[in-house]
């Protein structure tokens, strides 16, 4: 028993030790993303009404106000110091604290990411298993065609069609906005369609592979019922690449999907950072990258722990 515990602990500690360097790397990248382009946020701010054309003096004054005339290193260190105190800075455009705005928009993005993840998981995995179980029957072919379609249709093509059917014509679901559950249905479906198809196919393929392993033949020879073979012996191993895919997927939508949020008018993180990038609002860009980076790092830890559960070999002191 002791070797198993120390194996687990070693694994966990190794994962935790990664967190700080990753966080540092993300913070540096966040800062770089903010300042790497040669644009001048001062000019953009002063001309954002589309009418004013600021003179050199006004631009210089604005740059000084925003602290842009200092060296990059100084700006980075000041920012890092602020961050470690929990202050992500003030947006150039709205003059509101970045952290407040991020926290305000986080629930929207989490709702969207969460609902679409739920859709992907609860549709993809069972259907994938079903397809592997009922291999080559009519139902299998149909589901495979559907999965193929899911991964082949552009998401905003889908959104155009969905909105046209459900909002404009049937008037069953709202076309945009945020507030109630119906508001999140179309965006979640649009977001989930591609990943669901991919997951179904991947799950089917990995489960089929696992089912051809020797220990499965052994189980069959023992006379175990096929359902039990799949659920208990096949699935846990087949789930590993699937969990990886889900982890990647959730990570990618957790930052907010700028396109989906734009189409459905969801005030989430994606649209926030898009505006910030367009306006070269450095504090927001940096705060956003750091914020989502931290969430993602935390989420990865969870996923790594899920690996522990699924692959007994890791528990035995492997990688």
């Amino acid at each position, binding site marked *: 028993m002791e070797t198993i515990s120390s194996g687990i602990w070693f694994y966990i500690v190794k994962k935790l030790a990664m967190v700080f360097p*990753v966080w540092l790397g993300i913070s540096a990248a966040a800062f770089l993303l903010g300042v790497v382009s040669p644009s001048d946020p001062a000019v953009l701010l002063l001309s954002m009404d589309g009418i004013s054309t600021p003179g050199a003096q006004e631009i210089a004054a604005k740059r000084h106000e925003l602290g842009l005339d200092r060296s990059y290193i100084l700006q980075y260190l000041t920012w890092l110091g602020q961050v470690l105190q929990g202050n992500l800075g003030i947006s150039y455009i709205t003059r509101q604290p970045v952290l407040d705005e991020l926290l305000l928009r986080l629930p929207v993005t989490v709702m969207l990411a969460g609902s679409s993840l739920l859709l992907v998981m609860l549709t993809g995995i069972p259907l994938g298993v079903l397809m592997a179980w009922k291999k080559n029957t009519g139902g299998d072919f149909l589901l495979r065609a559907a999965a*193929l379609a899911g991964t*082949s*249709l552009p998401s905003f093509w889908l959104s155009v069609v969905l909105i046209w059917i459900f909002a404009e014509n049937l008037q069953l679901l709202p076309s945009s906005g945020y507030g109630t559950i119906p508001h999140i249905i179309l965006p979640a479906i649009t977001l989930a369609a591609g990943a669901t198809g991919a997951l179904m196919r991947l799950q089917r393929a990995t489960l089929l592979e696992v089912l051809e392993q020797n220990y499965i033949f052994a189980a069959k020879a023992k006379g175990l019922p096929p359902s039990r073979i799949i659920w208990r012996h096949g699935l846990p191993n087949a789930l590993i690449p699937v969990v990886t895919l889900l982890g990647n997927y959730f990570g990618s939508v957790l930052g907010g999907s*700028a396109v989906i949020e734009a189409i459905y008018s969801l005030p989430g993180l994606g649209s926030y950072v*898009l505006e910030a*990038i367009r306006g070269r609002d450095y504090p927001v860009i940096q705060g956003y990258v750091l914020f989502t980076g931290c969430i993602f790092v935390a989420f990865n830890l969870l996923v790594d722990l899920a690996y522990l559960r699924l692959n007994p070999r890791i528990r035995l002191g492997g990688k």
Partner: protein
Amino acid sequence: MSVTNKASIVYKLAAVSLLLLVSAAVFAPVIAPYDPNLVMPDETLQPCSAKHWLGTDALGRDFLSRLLYGAQVSIGFAVLAALCTTLLGVSLGVLGGYFGGVIDLVLQLLVNIFQGLPGMSLMIAIAGSLGPGSASLLLAVTLTSWAGFSRIVRGEVLKIKEESYIEGIRSLGGSDWYILRRYILPNLFNSLIILFTVRVGTVVLSVASLSFLGLGMQPPQADWGVMILDAKVYFRSYPQLLLAPGLCILALCSSIQLVGDALRDRFSIRQNTQQQDW
């Protein structure tokens, strides 16, 4: 027997449609009836007719010609970008997964950082610095997708590495390179093919999303994703503007995936006398 026939019919169909699409892309300059960028202001938004088989778009350009030239852009770029991502993702994933130790740690660090970075911001930052265009698009798409790829590959490699027969070969004196070439990579092939083919589809869609944000293909280039965007305004009265490029993308992505599956089954080291799977 009948199932095998059904499956192989599907595969043959997929191969044929892929061939059609690729030839459309290659021979577009020969087949297309008009210059795809020829603006004809008096013939805008025409329905399908003998003169314009698929009608015209809002600038009076022949839609069929744009579709054919669009194949060049969409297919060519997508395959290129998917190849780059796969190469980068596989090499780094295999390196990390197989050799482990410090290399693995460093690569995992990189993967975590890149994955923790929001893809959109990275893409826009790259496009912002390099200026919008195909080169920055390629760089942006590759840099934002290699990490996820390499993660999956690494997971698979770890799984394969732990198989008992690998230990056996090593104890028989097999070198790392031999094991990689003979056992690890071929075993990866199955999942890789699926991932690559899905990746091609994703790239086509990513490029279209970037066009939505203003970073994709520049006008007046015909690109299927961009054509869908343009169609969003007019599709209620002129549905072919939306349906045609959508169906083309659907056809491209599905046929690539199916052909990928067929290849995987053909070259798989597992002696699968069972039916092919797709």
